[in-house]
């Protein structure tokens, strides 16, 4: 059974312990919640009545050219500028080492004048190789899902809706391969948008850019279909359009972010865990139970429909789907007692997979929007790892023994426990993973494995304490300057509720995919489909409201908020497979 602990700030809330939550395999089982950044964006767009319009759409018959979408929030104006170009098939690759893409795009703060447009046209398509303008908040690129794209254009041009199998197989027309923010290649620093009401929260600007790309993807397909056959072309069915998201292909490049931003990640986890503890603390009622059953059913359909290539993940999804059926059966049999949620979670922890346990947690959070949505506002962090040089060494030792016990008591000497090393490749300076005993470059290892560092600090600290029982931290770092970063981190993270991800990132059994899954869940990605053990495809905004939904006063407000675990539109809306 999961151990619970009371928070200092909210003694009534029982949070799960760091030992439970920060376990890498559990983090690698997270699903997106209503606090995920994609969900937050559509809620905010609805609540603040953002006005989004296409102000330029200059594409040729093949869909190549430029398009501009304007975003007007209550206080600021932004533009998403998209450059679509012809790309030879043999240059189309999702690898980060690609040099050209079907389209490139950016999110710009303020208006776009001809001078800026010209600068962007010259640089945005080059991505990393360009020098980007400081008014840009985000730059990104995407490649077509070739099979889907052509199938959609052909169907629409011939006056048909695309086959449902195309819709189900890949729920997107474009797949991004990197979405850059925070000063990359000359664009605006995150520090500049901090304090802005629109994009203060991490990754909110990136999410907005990707959301607009999703709209463009269908606008473009419909445009090409019209050009191909103006007399027969039709627009995409609204439900199908809503079911389309934007794919994303991600490799190891995402993993170091979780290690290099420990305060931020701890804050994300804390928000999620506080939401969960809040849900646990609510007294269940019959409508709540029915709603949970309904959500389980939707998630079951979603899991059943998901076309996942990775065998292991596909199996996990099937197990989760079957286990959700057990959850429904359990919910329908058990009396509606005040501790029903707690009992459900305990039962699931005893009998079900991690994937299902975390799915249940995700769905429980979904039940209480009024109580948990404000937690979104606490998902940024002032990131500052500071030394406390006057901390007595005995106190530092106590911190290590209390908060880093999982690290200081582990072994880092065997071939298994020091199997991997992380490094940065000369190719686009991307992080990679190498086998220490077999590959070159271990001497240039990135300092991402926190656990062995903590263990080394502990060893040197104990040796110094033998000589100087009243010693201070400054004496340790003066004697061992190489520990400066680790000591700062240990002192800082001990003050957070969740602290570090508890894993030895050198260990042979360590799965980098868990790191990717954890981050992607907070961004709001669905359709998690690992390809091998080092990169993954996911989908964003599948099922999310459309721009036309925002402009339609008759749209059910729930459409802007309740769109997780998207299910394919009914067959009636789309053509069935012949």
């Amino acid at each position, binding site marked *: 059974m999961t151990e619970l602990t009371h928070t200092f700030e909210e003694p009534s809330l029982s949070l799960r312990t760091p030992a439970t939550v920060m376990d890498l395999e559990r983090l690698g089982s997270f699903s997106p919640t209503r606090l995920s950044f994609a969900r937050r964006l559509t809620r905010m767009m609805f609540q603040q009545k953002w006005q989004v319009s296409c102000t330029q759409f200059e594409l040729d018959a093949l869909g190549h050219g430029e398009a501009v979408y304007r975003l007007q929030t209550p206080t600021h104006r932004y533009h998403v500028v998209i450059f679509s170009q012809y790309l030879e098939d043999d240059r189309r*690759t*999702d*690898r*980060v*080492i690609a040099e050209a893409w079907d389209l490139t795009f950016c999110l710009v703060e303020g208006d776009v004048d001809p001078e800026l447009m010209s600068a962007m046209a010259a640089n945005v398509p080059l991505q990393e190789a360009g*020098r980007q303008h*400081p008014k840009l908040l985000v730059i990104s690129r995407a490649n077509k899902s070739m099979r889907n794209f052509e199938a959609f254009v052909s169907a629409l041009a011939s006056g048909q809706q695309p086959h449902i199998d195309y819709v189900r197989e890949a729920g997107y027309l474009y797949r991004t*391969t990197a979405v850059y923010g*925070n*000063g*990359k*290649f*000359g*664009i*605006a*620093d*995150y*520090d*500049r948008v901090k304090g802005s009401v629109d994009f203060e929260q991490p990754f909110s600007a990136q999410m907005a850019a990707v959301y607009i790309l999703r709209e463009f993807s269908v606008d473009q397909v419909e445009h090409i279909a019209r050009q191909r056959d103006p007399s027969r072309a039709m627009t995409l069915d609204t439900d199908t359009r809503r079911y389309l998201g934007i794919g994303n*292909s991600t*490799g*190891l490049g995402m993993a170091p972010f979780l290690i290099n931003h420990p305060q931020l990640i701890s804050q994300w986890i804390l928000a999620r865990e506080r939401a969960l503890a809040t849900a646990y603390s609510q007294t269940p009622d019959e409508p709540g139970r029915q709603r949970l059953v309904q959500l389980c059913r939707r998630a079951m359909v979603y899991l059943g429909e998901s076309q996942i290539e990775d065998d292991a993940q596909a199996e996990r999804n099937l197990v989760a789907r079957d286990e959700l059926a057990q959850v429904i059966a359990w919910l329908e049999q058990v009396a509606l007692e005040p501790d029903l949620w707690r009992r459900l979670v305990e039962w699931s922890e005893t009998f079900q997979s991690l994937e299902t346990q975390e799915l249940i947690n995700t769905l429980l959070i979904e039940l209480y929007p009024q109580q948990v949505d404000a937690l979104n506002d606490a998902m940024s962090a002032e990131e500052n790892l*500071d*030394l406390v*040089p*006057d901390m007595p060494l005995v106190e530092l030792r106590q911190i290590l023994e209390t908060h880093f016990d999982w690290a200081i008591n582990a072994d880092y000497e065997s071939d298994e426990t020091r199997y991997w090393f992380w*490094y940065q*490749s*000369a*190719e686009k*300076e*991307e*992080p*990679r*993973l*190498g*086998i220490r005993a*077999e*590959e*070159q*470059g271990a001497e*240039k290892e990135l*300092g991402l494995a926190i656990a062995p560092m903590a263990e080394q600090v502990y060893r040197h600290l104990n040796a110094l304490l033998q000589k100087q029982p009243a010693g201070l931290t*400054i004496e340790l*770092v*003066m*004697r*061992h*300057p*190489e*520990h*400066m*970063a*680790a*000591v*700062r981190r240990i002192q800082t993270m001990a003050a957070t509720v969740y602290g570090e991800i508890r894993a030895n990132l050198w260990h042979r059994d360590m799965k980098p995919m868990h790191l990717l899954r954890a981050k992607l869940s907070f961004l709001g990605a669905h359709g998690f489909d690992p*390809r*091998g053990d*080092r*990169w993954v495809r996911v989908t964003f905004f599948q099922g999310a409201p459309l721009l036309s939904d925002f402009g339609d006063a008759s749209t059910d407000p729930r459409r802007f908020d309740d769109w997780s675990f998207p299910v394919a539109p009914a067959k009636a809306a789309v053509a069935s497979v012949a």
Partner: protein
Amino acid sequence: MNVSLNELQSVCRKAFLGMGFAVGHADDAAAMVTWLQSHGLQGLSVLTKNMACVTAATSRQRPQIVFEDDGLAVVDGQNLSVLASGNLAMELAYTKATKQGFAAVRMQQCRQRQLIVGYLARLAGRGINVTACWRHSQSPLLEQVVNFRAGSTVPSITATTVSEPVPVDATHDDLTVFMAKHLELMPETTVQGQQAVQYRRDEAEFTLARKAALQQGMTVSPDVWNQLKAFAALTLVQASEASRTGAGPSD
């Protein structure tokens, strides 16, 4: 070329790692240079004028303590850049000041002393009053005083000429830093006798410079950038077929 703060700090960090700095010290050195550059104090120019005193540092560089008591320390900077171990010397001063109320650290034989301002900003942000002063070996002799109020991450800086005779063999390569927990050390610089204020910059100027850097980015010479990138490249591992398996699909 125009670069962002994050970009500059990131490339500096990698460059210092490439030069052999340990991780925490590369972090600090990069933050110091970027702090100066983003506050209009030409950190990159200071850095690149004498790279040799930076690259000579080892990965376990630390200040050598010449003398120390509860409130005072004299340390030897070993003719290296303050980037090499100035952070540790300043943390030592901070420790003494938090214990004793106030402290002074004199760092002898150190280079690129201006760059320490970037670290002092961090310490002042932690809530301690800081004043640093040093003399430039130029004619006329220039005395620079940097003052941070506790809690403020921007200083006021005053430079005055000193007309008093100085020994011909004076080296002017030391740096003196005072820290005080409760005393505001230098609300105003006192100018006496033949001293003349060469320049004075207040907190508001630095705040504006930082804001402009965030709004417009910072201009960096391509030569300097390439120099930093060349050091940064020393941290990279050449790609191989094995490494490419982490780079996405092979389609």
